[in-house]
């Protein structure tokens, strides 16, 4: 019995774990398509995580907490975008700066408000509503895996659909993609590539804020450094997913499963958790090398 029921909770937790990856990666996809390497995802998520739980506890309203967490993250994204685009700083360096800033700011504020730098628990924090529908849950296997998550998990799926539509079916998406692939053409149509870059950065701020909110609100506490490299994994998912929403979804499933495995596998299979956590990075670097090899030899072939 335990052998057959073991994968179901593991897959269930895969779905829960991948939601923040997915949201951050979808936001990062916009900046990536607009031609920017956005390594600030991690920091933006951390800001979202910190402020959403603080405001949710302060106001007693889940909605206000999430909304204000997103506002904080979008604001940070705006600073990041302003310095990168208007003060013409290197976006990679300002991305690093955003991460350092987020770490410093959350620590300093946590210390000043709560007097300690450890985990901050909020006793009367409202819980995230969970979708539970007995009739849906009766669907074998899928019902157990896909039903019974908090609503933000479903929001993250919705985001993937929404992003696909915006990117491929709207003028806005076309312009964002054009900004990355041919900014000169965008400029020639009388539009400002810089403006679309800023929009893309703000979108990444929005989704990262939401991603952070999921992390801290489902814990019901603020844990310092709660993002723990998830923003980086999200960035990696963009590359493994070959910069498409569907590819990112698949990459996030793979990474979510790896992390879920590392939680469940302890004592079951003889692989240290650290190795399983290293897996997303290794598989992505291997995929990147394979991809560049194929491109390299194909180009060479066409030259002959």
């Amino acid at each position, binding site marked *: 019995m335990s052998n057959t029921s073991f994968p179901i909770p593991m897959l269930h937790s895969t779905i829960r774990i991948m939601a923040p990856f997915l949201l951050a990666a979808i936001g990062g996809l916009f900046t990536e398509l607009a031609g920017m390497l956005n390594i600030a995802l991690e920091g933006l998520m951390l800001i979202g995580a910190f402020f959403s739980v603080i405001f949710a506890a302060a106001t007693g309203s889940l909605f206000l907490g999430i909304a204000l967490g997103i506002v904080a993250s979008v604001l940070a994204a705006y600073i990041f975008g302003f310095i990168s685009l208007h003060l013409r700083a290197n976006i*990679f360096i300002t991305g690093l700066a955003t991460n350092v800033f987020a770490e410093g700011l959350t620590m300093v504020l946590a210390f000043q408000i709560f007097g300690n730098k450890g985990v901050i628990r909020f006793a009367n924090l409202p819980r995230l509503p969970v979708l539970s529908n007995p009739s849906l849950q009766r669907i074998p296997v899928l019902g157990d895996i896909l039903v019974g998550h908090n609503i933000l998990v479903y929001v993250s799926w919705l985001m993937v659909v929404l992003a696909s539509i915006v990117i491929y079916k709207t003028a806005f998406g076309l312009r964002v993609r054009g900004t990355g692939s041919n900014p000169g053409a965008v400029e020639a149509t009388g539009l400002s590539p810089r403006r679309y870059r800023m929009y893309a950065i703000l979108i990444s701020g929005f989704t990262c804020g939401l991603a952070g909110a999921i992390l801290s609100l489902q814990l019901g506490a603020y844990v310092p450094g709660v993002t723990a*490299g998830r923003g980086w994994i999200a960035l990696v998912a963009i590359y493994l997913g070959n910069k498409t929403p569907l590819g990112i979804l698949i990459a996030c499933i793979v990474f979510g499963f790896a992390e879920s495995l590392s939680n469940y596998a302890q004592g079951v299979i003889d692989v240290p958790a650290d190795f399983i956590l290293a897996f997303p990075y290794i598989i992505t670097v291997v995929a990147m090398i394979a991809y560049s090899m194929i491109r390299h030899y194909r180009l060479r072939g066409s030259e002959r």
Partner: protein
Amino acid sequence: MDRKRIAGLLSSTTGLALTVGIAFVIVIILIFVLSKEPGRAIYYFFVGPFTKSYYFGNMLNQSIGLIFTGLGIAVAFRSSTFNLGGEGQAYAGAMAATVICLSLPSLTGIVGGTAAILGAIATGAFLAGLSGFFRMRWGTDQLISSFLISAAVILIVNYLVTGPLDDPTNSMLTTARIGQQYQFLRIFKPSKLDISIVFAVAAAIATYFFMQRSHWGYEMRMCGINREFSRYAGINVAKYLMVPMAISGGFHGLAGAVAVMGTHYRCLKGVTAGLGWNGIAVALIAKNNPVAVIPAALFFAYLDAGARAAMLHADVTFELAKIAQAVIFFLVTAQALYGFFTTRKRVAA
């Protein structure tokens, strides 16, 4: 110096002064908002590192690793190669040095110590060189691949520290202590400052001459300025996708070895955390000039030391330094602050 260079120097100096000034103003504002005794906190943040020889020595000690990683990044950036894996390379270097020291308990300090340092350099150079190799061979994005390899390496070293190499007699997450003969001489007691600061300064000067005066250094810089032109000039450009990366990784590995053999005497979990990222900031403040890396590293260490002193003597927390460093990070490449005299050169692809 011609007028253009003077103008460039002037605008980059005022830009840097502006950057640092803005960072300080933000820290002061934050202290006024957050602290109940802002005067005291501000005094210790700015003057604290100079009030006690212990603080001052530790500040100098902290700059050592930053000089090495800053040099590593400066060499890579000068050559237009991108090493984003400094964190993992330094950590792996620390682990390599520890393993070598622990497995050679009965050698003399000079022989075994040299082996440990060379092992650390080789480890870092290999890890960074991999990214260089992939880019040279197949055009794989170096920025991303160096980061990914480093991220995986950090987790694997974490496993070694907490798993097979964990010291069971110690409650911390750390390896066993390295032998007495491998511990660098402390030269400014009671602070942790050790002799390796001499090596760090020497390395900076040597790197300067290597980049400016040697054949390899010249070709690396040429590739950094214009790879296509260098190809037509007959320079082996493929080689210089890998060599600067390996040098860069070697410096990071060295920084890891020094952190273990000079300061901690054991490989703690995350012993080099931050050295890689901060090395990038240090190199940028120094405008990738190896000699300027020394004051830039000292400045970064000063911010840390100031925040530490302010934490001990007033009611603010150490992470204030992070905010100051972040502000500098934010603005150090902002061309709008640096006028139009300086050449427009993009650091990351």
